[in-house]
């Protein structure tokens, strides 16, 4: 099972991200297309230090270590699909 995980998603659970839309990201699993479900692991991580009312990067997510700012479930899924497609090429 573990081997099949291709995408490691880390959702910032720092309070700023969490109240600025990050809470919603914990429903990500419901938005994943079925062909991706088994390939994705989702975990919460502490604040990654990108939260700031001026910069407005929140909510933040990392996909395989790469940061995605202003994340939404839709954005994450889109990014996963792009990665998946690139892989097929």
């Amino acid at each position, binding site marked *: 099972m573990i081997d099949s995980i291709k995408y490691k998603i880390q959702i910032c*659970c*720092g*309070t700023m991200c*969490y109240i600025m839309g990050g809470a919603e990201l*914990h429903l990500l699993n419901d938005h994943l297309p079925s062909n991706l479900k088994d390939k994705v692991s989702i975990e*919460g991580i502490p*604040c990654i230090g990108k939260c700031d*009312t*001026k910069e407005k990067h929140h909510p933040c997510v990392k996909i395989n270590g790469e940061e995605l700012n202003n994340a939404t479930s839709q954005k994450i899924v889109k990014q996963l699909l792009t990665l998946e497609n690139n892989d097929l090429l």
Partner: protein
Amino acid sequence: MTYYNNAVITKHELLVRLIQLLDTNKLLDDIDRIPLEMRPRTNSPIRCCVHKDRAVIKYKLMALLGFNIADEQHELTPLKEYAEQALEGYTQNGNFLTVVDEACSSCVQVNYTVSNLCQGCEGRPCQVNCPKDAIMVLNGKANIDHQKCVNCGICQKACPFHAIAYLPVPCEESCPVKAIRKNADGIEEIDFDKCIHCGKCMTACPFGAISEKSQILNLFNNIKHKKEKTVAMVAPAILSQFKASSAQILNSIKAVGFDEVMEVAEGANMTTDHETNELLERLNSGATFMTTSCCPSYIEFSEKHAPELKPFISDTPSPMAYTAMLAKKRFPEHKAVFIGPCLAKRTEVYQNQNIDYVITTEELGAVFAALKFDLVKTDDSPIVSKVVRPESRGYAASGGVTNAIKTILSSEHNITTELIDGIDKKSIRLLRSLPNKKVTDASFYEVMACDGGCINGPVNVSPLKVSQNKLKKAIQEIQSEEAAV
């Protein structure tokens, strides 16, 4: 009830900014800069222009500071002056919602509109069937005369092209008791003779035009400058609202500067015991049914809309009220602060002399965010009270009260129960019918104004499903920790 949308995020950002400014002692100097910073000229405006956007932010801030927008004396009064007063605490009057009229006024007067799908057909069933003669055809397209239209919807049903659309007014539609409607200027107004503070309009409005009057500045200022001692009474729903262990959440609340922290679930123990006895007594003496009393919005509903229900509502104090009694005994010098997911608790607290402040999940979250607390890195040492039964924390979700009562009822009592999960038009009909029935379907009704219970309160930060999972996990964690000791 938090649906992810930008209006909610704006509210959270406003709270965070206010608290950041207060924390860094810049509130009075910089509060008037918030609208400029949040709505810079470089962004494309959300409404007609940047000035409108900034005005909206200004008035939203005013509302959060505890002011009725309608009471504005002078348009040029800077936010600073309002902030100065807010730090002292505003004078409460029992109404805790206010409409930000600058943000409102954008919704339709008439719910029906003709889209460009209109073919201007010969039959014109919309026109022929309109009972008010409100439809004119101009340039081959139907038009609705707003002066004449009475929102009956016949034209929409009659149109074979589905060219007539229904545009709801979200706040009006969400209000279960018809307490919000447009005034002569087309701006929504809340009728406080009817309002039950369920908060549904507030979460429904996609412009964030309905705001609650917050006490957070006043409280946070007092805590920061140690002007008074405080005891935080934390509702069990709070444990479902942040991604950290219960101990971390409670320890973080303490770290904000509260001197003592208590779980409202401790009071829920007492509510359960008392309410169970009360139920048995009432049924013994011939009552057909009894309902719960812990949801303040339901209580306000019964007072304003269904006094016939009153005799059937339990007299047992709510978990918050019991907790406040304990708090007064244990910490007689301290100001009691209820921290919870509920708007209506503000009205309950307004009538309860043992409690001084109400803070919402959103406000608590904003404090954590502004102070840059990382909950998962906070002290995880146990702080929860050992006397709290797990079912008492379960009060936070619908069905929790029933479950708690059933756990202590012995099996020979055959109590039938029913859950009223959310006050809406349908459940109101059911509730109203109960007092007249000789036999009711159940003998115990648990009534929750929010569907899903307190974890779905209007001032929460987590979506319902996330909260449900988190609450379960929190209760289990505490149980296994206690078992381990």
